[in-house]
């Protein structure tokens, strides 16, 4: 979503707060489903994803007036989301839920080639360290560049590269040989 007009008295006669709420509501409508999917991939649990997303959206709402560049809202929202996911893990007084492979309601789509490969890969993702998992989700699901991923996570591009490399190594180590494209070259 990209808007350049900040809420103000000139916006259709609405008050500033009404205009802000209208703008934020439009953002929710456009981006909430995608953010929830990302939250699920980060947490591995539907309910945790909903909790994390609700808190992240609330923090985004509190900061909405400070986000001057509306084109950067998505990056900002993702950053809050990743941090909320991390906070979930760092709360010592909450019993930590192990990531499960429960899927959101509705059967996941299986392409014709998927003979359990997808499930095996998802299991790999769920056992990755938190940062590596966030890098994988942002790079390969959100399709962010290395630089964009680094900015969202507040880390260097070098760390993005090294985390990606380790995740791919883990993938090769833990998935069937059939998944290793190098095997196909034999």
């Amino acid at each position: 979503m990209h808007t350049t007009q900040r809420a103000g008295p000139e916006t259709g006669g609405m008050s500033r707060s009404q205009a802000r709420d209208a703008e934020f509501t439009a953002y929710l409508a456009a981006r909430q489903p995608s953010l929830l999917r990302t939250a699920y991939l980060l947490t591995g649990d539907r309910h945790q994803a909903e909790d994390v997303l609700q808190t992240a959206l609330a923090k985004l709402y509190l900061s909405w007036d400070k986000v001057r560049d509306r084109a950067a809202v998505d990056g900002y929202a993702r950053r809050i989301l990743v941090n909320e996911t991390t906070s979930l893990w760092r709360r010592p007084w909450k019993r930590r839920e192990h990531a499960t492979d429960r899927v959101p309601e509705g059967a996941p789509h299986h392409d014709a080639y998927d003979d359990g490969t997808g499930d095996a890969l998802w299991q790999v993702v769920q056992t990755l360290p938190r940062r590596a998992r966030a890098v994988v989700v942002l790079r390969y699901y959100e399709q962010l560049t290395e630089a964009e991923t680094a900015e969202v996570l507040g880390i260097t591009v070098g760390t993005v590269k090294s985390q990606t490399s380790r995740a791919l190594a883990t993938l090769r180590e833990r998935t069937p040989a059939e998944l290793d494209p190098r095997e196909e070259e034999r």
Partner: protein
Amino acid sequence: MSTPEDLFGDALRARVDHTEQPRTPLTEVVSTAHRIRRRRRIGTAAVSAVVLAVLATPFVLTAGDGPDSAPAPAEPAPSVPPADVRLADVALGAPPSLAWLDGSDYVAADGTRTTLPFDAVTRATPYAGGFLVTAFDDNQVTLLDSQLREVSQRCYAGSGFAVSDDGLRTAYPTSRCDRSEPTLHVGATSGDGDEWTAPMPLADAGPVGFLGDRVVVSSFNQGPPAVVGPDGSVTTLDALGIATDVDEPRGLVAGRLAGDPSSEQMVPTGAVLDASTGTARWSMPGWSLQSFSPDGSLVLGARADAGGTSWAVFDSETGEQRHEFATPTGFGAFRVAWEDDEHLLMVIVQDRTEAIVRTTLDGAIERASDTAPYDEDGGQDRRFGIAPHDFP
């Protein structure tokens, strides 16, 4: 031919892309936002799994005077913590005289700085001639050699490094990346000597301190804490729910009494346990015990409430309260450690600013570091830490 990157992306999209999700309406988002805003205004900061209570003797601020110039005795005062104390306005004193973290710099007690090759270091401690390091948003512990080259990197699910009183041995936790098989490692801080390992009896556990050649381990998710020996022997400390520190010479373990606090009141009971008998020496309802003073004669307790955090210092053997003070309203204490037997260092966050603050046991403060910006929403990691401990 699909690359591994393609396979990752396809697997993730297959997992979520074809599902319908309920949508959170604006009203619920706004309601949550209001709760967050109220929580921020209160400025509550938890230093452990503690909530709540009563206020104590107010904080004595001696701007311009260091703690070494004996502050005036606190007079009886209203039970309201000082307000409108800005972190940046607190006088700057000497830097910490124990090891601390300044971003990715490990600063030794003598001031020597080592820049560690990580973003956002959360814990670091010398080990085997190099360093053990953990970083923000990453559940791995990395061993670096003396040239700061990575020797190994392993997952862990617990927290904390523990160093023996004589400084010669260091303990740290690892696990498999699915958090199974928690393992305790103990090795020589300087690098002379072998490392021994033993299974930990608790998931998500970390070392808290040494008792001779054994290590006390504790977990926030499971209890009771336990003492693990190099032969794999395990002795549970059933009187405690959580252990927070160990006084090795006296054989005392500080922590929280076993038994969940009331779900309504969430008021814990701090306790000091005699490890030789396994029984509590004394307990103190409402207080969370943090750590023993370097000489072991005192133990620090904390209570968090709406106005800030109250602190008390107790005789470690009898529980007699020796000192009590409160931090100013809006000061969130994220880590506290004894600098010496008369001073504490605290990582303080106020609004969007953080600093290390030094306090006497009567509450006179000065800053021990410059201030640095901190933006919780922007995800900026806290800059300061007090090694080898972690950010909670």
